[in-house]
């Protein structure tokens, strides 16, 4: 990948970490009993990770914010 700019690299790594948070919270959401008091907490983690992911996706590629967005 010759076109890797520092910001792209950073975005890639951040997405990876968020993916892990999302994945584990999704697993927990499926496993935790519906009546469990932890369920809403896990749902919050999951939703926050999703929002963060969206933010990362919408972040401009160049510092001016005028450039084209990444495909994702």
């Amino acid at each position, binding site marked *: *990948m010759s076109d890797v700019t520092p910001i*792209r690299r950073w*975005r*890639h790594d951040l*997405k*990876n*970490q*968020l*993916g*892990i948070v*999302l*994945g*584990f919270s*999704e*697993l927990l959401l499926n496993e935790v009993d519906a009546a469990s008091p932890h369920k809403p907490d896990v749902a919050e983690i999951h939703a926050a990770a999703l929002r963060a*992911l969206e933010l990362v996706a919408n972040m401009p590629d160049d510092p001016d914010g005028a450039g084209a967005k*990444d*495909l*994702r």
Partner: protein
Amino acid sequence: MNDHRPTLLAIDDEPGMLALIERFAGGLDFDVISHHGGRSALEHIPQVHPDVILLDLQMPEICGLDVLRSIRAMDRECAVILMTAHASVESAIEAVKLGALDYLTKPLDLDRLRGLLTTVQKGIERRQALHEIDASVARQFEFQGMIGRSAAMQDLFDTIRRLAPHVRTVLISGETGTGKELVARAFHKIGPRRERRFSTVNCSAVVDTLFESELFGHQRGAFTGATETKIGVFEHADGGTLFLDEVGELPLTVQPKLLRAVEYGDLQRVGSLETRRVDVRVIAATNRDLRAESAAGRFRSDLYFRLSIMEIELAPLRDRREDIPLLTASFVRECGARLNRSFSGVTTAAERALQAAHWPGNIRELRNVIERACLLAEGRIITEREIQSAMAASSRPAPGAAASAVDRVSDASSLPLPEDGQLLSTAQRAQIDRVLRLSGGNKTEAARLLGISRRSLYRWIDRLALDQPRRQDVGHG
């Protein structure tokens, strides 16, 4: 049905990602093996033999596509799923070209991953179920050690069942490896003489000058070296069945005497004027066209007509390809039992390769290929690559196969035949026995391993058999 957990190999430089995959796929009944880098994973793939690989596209040490290329060079059939947090059209196209099962973007859509892993699981179960079915169908269509649901084989089994109680002479023709001896044994086993002796003579293994003595015996002093009176195979098989393999090799000079023995049961030992009477059922086999041989004067036509009253022609394997899956399943099961390993069959691509092969050595060759592939097999399912390398080994000409007749003569004489009455040295006997077992009874292969010609191997076997009558006799009540 599925008696083993499929193996998933996860390759990602991110430990959290590996942990997530382990947790997720472990819950779906996969054995998960994780690697932080492509290189260490590639080193382990041949030992692990994974059913599916989850591979990260962007790794610092080696790029995922390069890892995929190396995986493909090792194993064309393993399912590979690529993952990336940075999808691009180019890498997606390249992944598809390299035969990736799917291309997932991170964060992973767990439902989609579940769907893919279930597909892989179902595929394995399907192969295993097919193998079970083929093996059980093979048992159903088994007849006296022969397997076949093809019309040709079913007709053959019917013929044997119908005729075995009645016929006295049978001529079996067919290419090498088509199972002529099995047919002969089947005739014996379900015929009225099943409790009596079944003796075999391979006519290509007997020295021309010794044929008569071999078949009819000799009196002491009949010729130089005849130090004592010896009975021939006809008298030995009295009351039972005599199998004359490769009867087309029989010298013309002996043929009239054989005709008398077959027709009237009359024979004379070499050096004796006394006519003896035997009651022997003769089953002859040949891979030559005896009709053409007799038309050309190389085989006596009266003997041919006498032997061919009932002629059975065995179909080459390429003319009954529908039996290949059954034979394969049966041989795989057999080898697995012998090697104490449980195989769940062959892959689809391996099966295609087996179906497409020409099989000049017929069932014997197929059996050898399967046996070799089982020995080579790393995993539970035998892959196309393993079949291909087993087939390459089988089609490689034996050293000495191209040797001239002169070479073969010297090759035969380099292994001195023992003197009459003298026991083979234990070491030689053990060696020949061991090689024969190793080659599954395939004489061509055994001769190749021993570095001697097929003909001289037969001579050795002959000597061994004389010392060990149990090798020749079955069903002797």
